[in-house]
């Protein structure tokens, strides 16, 4: 069941590079990452690629296969036409380091910008009580394996480098939603309004809900429907609801 497949793999670094052709054996049941490993072992020992668990659980081997953001370990060769060349490139939203490896520090910077969970005052460890239905929503978002494919595919930063400072990206807007929906997060008591800051600090308004983040998520998290849109609605509560606005004006008068 083996066949010879044609691959085009982007080789290079920040100074330049291009798609290099390879012909390589493909066996039944293999995924794209297996082929990359075979290239390393036989033809290109210095081909740089990130990977760890090879089971879709760590989110390291993010790249683009035939132009689509994918985990290399979760892309079966059997889903690709055997007679057409397979193109593998690094993620095209982040600066390239070498070959398939990109500099994803943007994401770690954004992670730091989201204020952490604020533990409730007066509850000691072991005294937390939360109902399952109250943690379900945040638990869905915590399935995230931080592969950053959503950050990579989002056109807000993919097509507009200049938006990077102002926009946290789907993964970290989802983190804001996760904390805002956490049943015991005490940010409000500390004077932090996550709903408002989602829009004012993290660029929620940039999102035009075109759902590419949801399409590429290997964990099948409904990022747009369950995190981003609810967060937008929460921001509306704060900023665009005339009744709330009127209420706050009256309160200020008093």
């Amino acid at each position, binding site marked *: 069941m083996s066949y010879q497949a044609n691959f085009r793999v982007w080789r290079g670094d920040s100074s330049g590079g291009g798609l290099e052709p390879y012909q390589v054996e493909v066996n039944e049941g293999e995924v794209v990452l297996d082929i990359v490993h075979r290239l390393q072992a036989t033809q290109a020992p210095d081909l740089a690629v990130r990977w760890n668990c090879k089971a879709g659980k760590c989110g390291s081997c993010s790249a683009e296969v035939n132009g689509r953001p994918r985990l290399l370990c979760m892309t079966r060769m059997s889903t690709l036409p055997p007679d057409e060349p397979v193109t593998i490139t690094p993620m095209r939203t982040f600066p390239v380091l070498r070959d398939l490896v990109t500099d994803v520090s943007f994401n770690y910077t954004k992670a730091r910008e989201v204020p952490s969970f604020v533990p409730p005052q007066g509850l000691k460890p072991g005294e937390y009580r939360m109902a399952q239905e109250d943690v379900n929503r945040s638990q869905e978002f915590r399935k995230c394996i931080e592969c950053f494919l959503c950050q990579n595919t989002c056109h807000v930063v993919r097509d507009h480098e200049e938006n990077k400072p102002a926009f946290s990206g789907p993964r970290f807007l989802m983190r804001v939603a996760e904390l805002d929906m956490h049943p015991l997060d005490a940010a409000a008591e500390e004077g932090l309004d996550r709903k408002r800051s989602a829009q004012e600090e993290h660029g929620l308004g940039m999102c035009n809900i075109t759902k590419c983040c949801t399409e590429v998520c290997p964990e099948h998290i409904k990022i747009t429907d369950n995190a981003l849109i609810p967060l937008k*609605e929460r921001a509306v509560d704060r900023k665009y609801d005339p009744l709330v606005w009127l209420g706050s004006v009256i309160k200020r008068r008093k």
Partner: protein
Amino acid sequence: MTTETRPPQHPGEPQTPADPSGPAPGRGVHSPGRAAIAARHLRTDRWWLSQAVTAFGLLAFVGYSTWRAFFGLHTAYAAPYVSPFYSPCLAANCPAMKSGADWALFGSWWQLSPALIVLIFPLGFRLTCYYYRKAYYRAFWSSPPACAVAEPHASYSGETRFPLVLQNIHRYFFYFAIVVAGILTYDAVLAWRNPAGQWGHAGIGTLVLLANIVLIWAYTLSCHSCRHIVGGRLRHFSKHPVRYRMWNLVGKLNARHMQLAWASLISVGVADLYVYLLASGAFTDPRLF
């Protein structure tokens, strides 16, 4: 020397296929530092297909509804059915509808089609709907054309500025949409009469209006704003068991929001077309009982 930390130079030009339609170098995926790939995308599938189908579907509806809204007044009512485009009918120039929602709030000074008064609301509801936004941003504005396909625009500010910041008023259109859906429900009830106004009869038109109103409600209730209002805004579902159940129900509908958006769009058009055909005498309504 092999132990240099600097990479070797790459001989020869990159072999990336050139794509003349791509944006100028230096922007987006061609920003300095990113992998040097000339093509604006490398997708090999028919990514443009869904964009094209969406654009065609929306344009077809817009064309049809514009024609009907401006010129359909005299074929808006065929007893006992009223076209959903003309209900409620709020001007003096409306046709008389037996017990129908023809309330002449606007006097005879209103010379335009009465449909224009009311259509603002369902139109606004759909225009600011989270699904339609996705659909037309992609189909008409190519922002983005498809996932991982570079968009043609030089700058992008999303929904942060006027006019797109107005998308945030979606939930007020939702409230109006509830009212409109209520009136259309009333119309569907009135359809259980014969053309003479006697109750307990039904024709194919009754079923058309019934199917339409069911889809309208399903679409309206599956709205993301509705999901937020009934329960999504709560922090502790466990303290609001009834609203939690409602949120779950709306959530199930919401997962089908796209399908319902299209289904209800088509059903509105079909219901109007049916009334038009009856009113213009193309055929008579087959009566069931």
